[in-house]
């Protein structure tokens, strides 16, 4: 069976979904990701351009409007619950790691 590419989110996907909690143009997602991650994560144009249609096809984000070459997106309900699931998973991972490291 084909693996669901969004079962666990990669770092760029995670930050793109975070950035799209508010409506944002595709081009501005790069700056917002950098802002959210305090400059730690930078999503390149190649990655972003390839990921946005995939996330849209999977129903995680929706296109809200289009002006010239610019497209605006926003997180959908499915995207929002996937993001929350991912946050819970990451929290659990962090707790597991902290517990294991404390011995």
């Amino acid at each position, binding site marked *: 069976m084909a693996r669901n590419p969004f079962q666990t989110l990669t770092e760029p996907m995670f930050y793109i979904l975070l950035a799209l909690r508010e409506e944002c143009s595709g*081009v*501005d997602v790069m700056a917002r990701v950098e802002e959210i991650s305090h400059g730690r994560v*930078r999503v*390149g*144009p*190649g*990655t972003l*351009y390839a990921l946005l249609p995939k996330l849209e096809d999977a129903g995680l984000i929706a296109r809200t409007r289009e002006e010239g070459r610019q497209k605006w997106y926003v997180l959908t309900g499915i995207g929002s619950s996937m993001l929350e699931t991912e946050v819970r998973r990451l929290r659990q991972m962090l707790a597991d790691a902290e517990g294991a490291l404390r011995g």
Partner: protein
Amino acid sequence: MKTKFVPLIFSYLECDGLARYLERQAEKGWHFKAFRLGMEFEKGEPRRVTYDVQTFLKNKETDTAPEPETEEFAAYCEAAGWEFADSTKRFLVFRKDRWNAQPIYTGEERLQCVFRSELRARAEHHLSMLLLFVCFLFNASLNPPMWLFNSVMQLLLIYTGLSAALGLIRVPALFFWRAAKKRELQKTGTITCPSRPIRRTAWLMFRLFPLFPLAWMVLGPQGGPVVWAGAVSVVLLGTAIAWFRPGRGENRLIQIAGGIGVVLIIFLTAAMVMMSAGPVKQDSLSGAPLLVRDLRKVTGEPESAEFTRQSSSLGSLTVVTEHYPEDGVQAGAELDLRLYRFSGSGAEDTIWQYETGRYRLAGAEDVSAAWGASEAWHNTVIDPYGGLAAHWYYLRYEGTTVVLHVSWELSAEQIAIVRAKLGV
């Protein structure tokens, strides 16, 4: 403003090589402006400019200008600090706009884009050559003399066959390139696509090779107004597309309309040549191995006549055609001669089968003894409408095949003249 045009001969595997080339030109004061007629540069102040050349998989090999998807992607790159300069085929050229510009692709993305762009380019080229080769072979099977005794056509056949076969080396070689770049990616986290001047030059020479026989076809003895009209209209169409750079949709339409236009021009030129043809000049027949007047008395000039000779490493084909009309004083006379001389034995059987096949020898009379040939046949076709009769002679000697059509039956004396004239 002073401008210069340089052909674009870089492959997708040389993206960085092309970027460094543009940077060197900028340092000399030649600034890349657009992909027009290759690459267009504008003269200005020497400057240090950082270029980045990438490939974009949504573009096509036939694209001459940026498409809407290209511009959409370019907008993302501009937000990342790269000014979009221009695009052609799957190449995209950017200038660094900010010191902290973000890389356009990750190493893995870049490897995939470059690899797939080059794979598609190579596959498209070699498959189109294979298609052309199959068409040429099919045509050669229908009309062997056109290909066997014409060096230019033979070169084109060999070239397309070789080009198609080279795909069997060049496509797998690309997978080796990808494996090497994957190792580079694992070691360094990025990939480089530098210039490959020796391979590029060798491939360029190979691709330009057919231009020599084609130029010879146009400029040489076979080049007439029809060939010239075809060649000039194709060059003009190609230049116009490279200059005006139509979008993908328009380009497709222009190529279809242009192709139809070129065929029309060729037909019109041929029609004009035929209509403007004056009386046949005897000079045009000088050197012909056999004419009607060698065999019988005729007055005046032939109404139509043709004498051509073409040769290749396999031998030569001489064609003579003469037609004298019935004018009340004399009966009309026709002569068609196809004289094949073979350098080796390779083509002899093919030509004999081509000339005598399709029931042409049905009901024919064996005249080998009269002609002193290893094989000779005489077939008579009477025109039911009272026109000239057709006497066909199919003669096979060692190293020579003759197909002779005359409108009267040849006497023993005339056969002797034909044999003496043709040296058989």
